[in-house]
């Protein structure tokens, strides 16, 4: 580091001296694998078909994430990209416990959740590419995947933001007298948001069918668990609010599955919310722009030796459920599916610029007023006529003036609000009206526009943030 300061040396040692964890434990570096008693609970293998499913889902997620990282390096993917490599057992173990009718909700680190729930890799990759065929039509990107069909209610970019939503979904399940449950996944860092305590209390108070799963990957960005949470046994954090918690081995899909299954059954049948902490580890940086100066390579290596996919595959081979060749075949299939998703995403078109204002509102015909600015006045507004950017501006201004009659100030004055309203009603909300036909669409290549010297766009990616 430029200033020659190693954060792990100074800061963490200092913390050790000056601060005690609230639960009385000494704040050592991060949880050591043995501390969560790896391998102590050994579950029997489920039936071969389930074993195969669990393994292949974990493999798909791993391969998908690796490829997404590569695509980010190639600038096919923009913004923030948070990979879940290392956390596959927590994700697949938990989601395999769901019924089809149950709901799932997650954070911005959620590619794995979507894939595990059955969202097609094509739709996920296309979303990362910002394409129209993405599972959120390119609007949301990596942090905001969504799949209504699979009852995957989304990834959310605001830490802790999804927690109240999940209790609300549980409220609806209860209200509508279904026996569906929602699985609400969060990071360790999210347990420090106010929404955590508030949600736990209400979920318990109203006996809602929700199971919270903390994917404790031991860091919130560059801040290790013991530096952000006074209580580091996160399974205890909800207890005072009336939500019992259980800790499980997040590197063992079967342990996660078993604990989450019990929790779901309890929430479904006893109407008591439950919390599960799955202790795992994030192998990669927080996002793609993370220099990872807050932890050592050895620590990462130590956790990689407990790799949940390798360990599970080895066990299946050892116990004769799968042959080594079958394991390799499953992995090859995962790679193939991911290859296919990249091809699909590459071919999928970018959203039409015309669609910029789609879905801001659910339009109804009864409301005769302005909704968004694009239909409010005939004037130049950003977005609405972006296609024109780059054309001779004077030309544009004239065209703009011509179509709306705004060149004539008197005429504009004469256009009363009632007139505009009627025009709006004729046009129907959400349509571009004449403006769209007046100029040639698609004359600006957005990529060129983006590179066209706007402040900061020439900055290399590493100049951006690492949030």
């Amino acid at each position, binding site marked *: 580091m*430029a*200033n020659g*300061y190693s*954060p792990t040396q100074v*800061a963490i040692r*200092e*913390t050790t001296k000056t601060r005690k964890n609230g639960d009385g434990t000494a704040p050592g570096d991060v949880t050591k694998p043995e501390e969560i008693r790896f391998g102590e609970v050994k579950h029997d293998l489920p039936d071969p078909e389930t074993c195969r499913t669990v393994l292949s889902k974990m493999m798909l997620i791993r391969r998908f994430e690796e490829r997404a990282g590569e695509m980010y390096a190639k600038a096919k993917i*923009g*913004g923030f990209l948070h990979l879940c490599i290392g956390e596959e057992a927590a994700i697949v173990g938990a989601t395999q416990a769901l019924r089809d009718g149950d709901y799932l909700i997650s954070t911005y680190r959620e590619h794995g959740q979507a894939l595990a729930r059955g969202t097609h890799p094509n739709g996920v990759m296309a979303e990362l590419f*910002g394409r129209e065929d993405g599972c959120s039509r*390119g*609007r*949301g*990107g990596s*942090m905001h995947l969504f799949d209504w069909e699979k009852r995957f209610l989304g990834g959310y*970019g*605001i*830490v802790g*933001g999804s927690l109240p939503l999940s209790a609300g979904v549980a409220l609806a399940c209860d209200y509508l007298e279904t026996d569906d449950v929602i699985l609400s996944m969060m990071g360790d*860092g999210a347990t*420090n*948001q*106010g929404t955590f305590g508030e949600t736990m209390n209400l979920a318990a108070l109203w006996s809602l069918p929700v199971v919270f799963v903390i994917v404790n990957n031991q860091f919130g*960005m560059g*801040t290790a668990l013991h*530096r952000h949470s006074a209580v580091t046994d996160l399974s205890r954090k909800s207890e005072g609010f009336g939500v019992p918690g259980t800790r499980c081995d997040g590197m063992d899909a079967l342990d996660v599955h078993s604990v989450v299954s019990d929790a779901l059954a309890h929430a479904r049948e006893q109407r008591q919310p439950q919390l599960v902490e799955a202790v795992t580890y994030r192998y990669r940086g927080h996002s793609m722009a993370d220099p990872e*100066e*807050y932890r050592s390579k050895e620590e990462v290596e130590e956790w990689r030796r407990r790799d949940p996919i390798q360990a599970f595959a080895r066990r299946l081979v050892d116990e004769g459920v799968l042959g080594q060749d079958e394991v390799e075949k499953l992995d090859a299939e995962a790679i193939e599916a991911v290859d296919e998703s990249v091809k699909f995403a590459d071919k999928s078109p*970018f959203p039409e610029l015309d669609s*910029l*204002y789609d879905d*801001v509102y659910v339009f109804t015909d009864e409301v005769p007023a302005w909704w968004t*600015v*694009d239909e409010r006045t005939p*004037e130049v*507004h*950003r*977005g609405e006529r972006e296609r024109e*950017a*780059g054309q001779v*501006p004077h030309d544009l*201004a004239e065209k*703009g*003036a011509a179509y709306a009659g*705004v*060149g004539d100030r008197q005429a504009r004055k004469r256009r009363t609000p009632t007139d505009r309203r009627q025009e709006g009603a004729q046009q129907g909300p959400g349509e571009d009206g004449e403006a769209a036909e007046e100029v040639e669409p698609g004359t600006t290549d*957005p*990529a060129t*526009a*983006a590179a066209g010297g*706007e*402040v*900061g*766009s020439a*900055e290399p990616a590493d*100049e*951006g*943030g*690492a*949030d």
Partner: protein
Amino acid sequence: MPVMRYREALNQALREEMRADEKVFLMGEDIGVFQGAFKVTAGLLEEFGEKRVRDTPISENTIVGMGVGSAMVGLRPVVELMTINFSLLAMDQIVNHAAAIRYMFGGQVKVPMVIRMPQGAGHQLGPTHSHSFEAFYLHVPGLLVAVPSTAADAKGLLKAAIRDDNPVIFIEHETLYGQRGEVPENGGPMRFGEAAVRRQGDDVTIIGISRMAITAQKAADSLAETHEIEAEVIDPRTLRPLDLDTIRDSVKKTNRAVIVEEGWPHGGVGANLAALIQEQAFDWLDAPVERVTGADVPMPYSKPLEQAAFPHEEHVVQAALATFRDL
């Protein structure tokens, strides 16, 4: 004059003010060991230690509220929020407490704190990370609002913000952190409420907010080159207090005004400024005040959509030309 990046200028301001005043301390998510999500606080933990550079949990409302409490009894906290979208989680403490406390207790107490946050689109951070909310904060009496667009302003205004006895919302821009600019050596704090005239011209006044001050300057250059229009470009630098005199005098000279901002149009900074301009300079206006704003939508992720959703140089040129339409 030394040339440095915007983020370095901010870093210098923090460092200098912390050296000068023991009461100044920093709180924020990943500002210490991680050195800041945008590296603004790099090296400060090393120099000042954990007491004064405090990594916090992800608890925006509470860390801002703790800033308010500590400021009430004499500290001078500088709280960093990772993006302006996350400041929404702290809106309660900012509006109900930071802004109101002095007034509601009859002037007995003050809240000398700074809340820093970056805003802005362009890095495809999508609908929860890339908005521009200066208008939200401009709306609130009791808050000062700074929107620096150059390295020199970043440093001078941050120093002023830290020394000011009011709560200051200090809005940085994500795409400006890497931009270089000249910063005066040993420069002191700048004064709030002094706009910068970035370019002189007689034909049209273009007021650019935050990063849009730079977009406005580019547009002004192309107006001169292509259309023989000499635009005067004003960067207000602080929205509260607002240097309305400079803006009004310019509009009286040029008789035309264009306001450029990245945020949403309804209730935006431009809506407010347009009202002020027409109140104060109506008789001098030869054309309706034009606004160029971000699109009236949550910020989309997809690159072409995102690019379509915030203003570019061409839009500013169009809007400026539109003020000449009737001639």
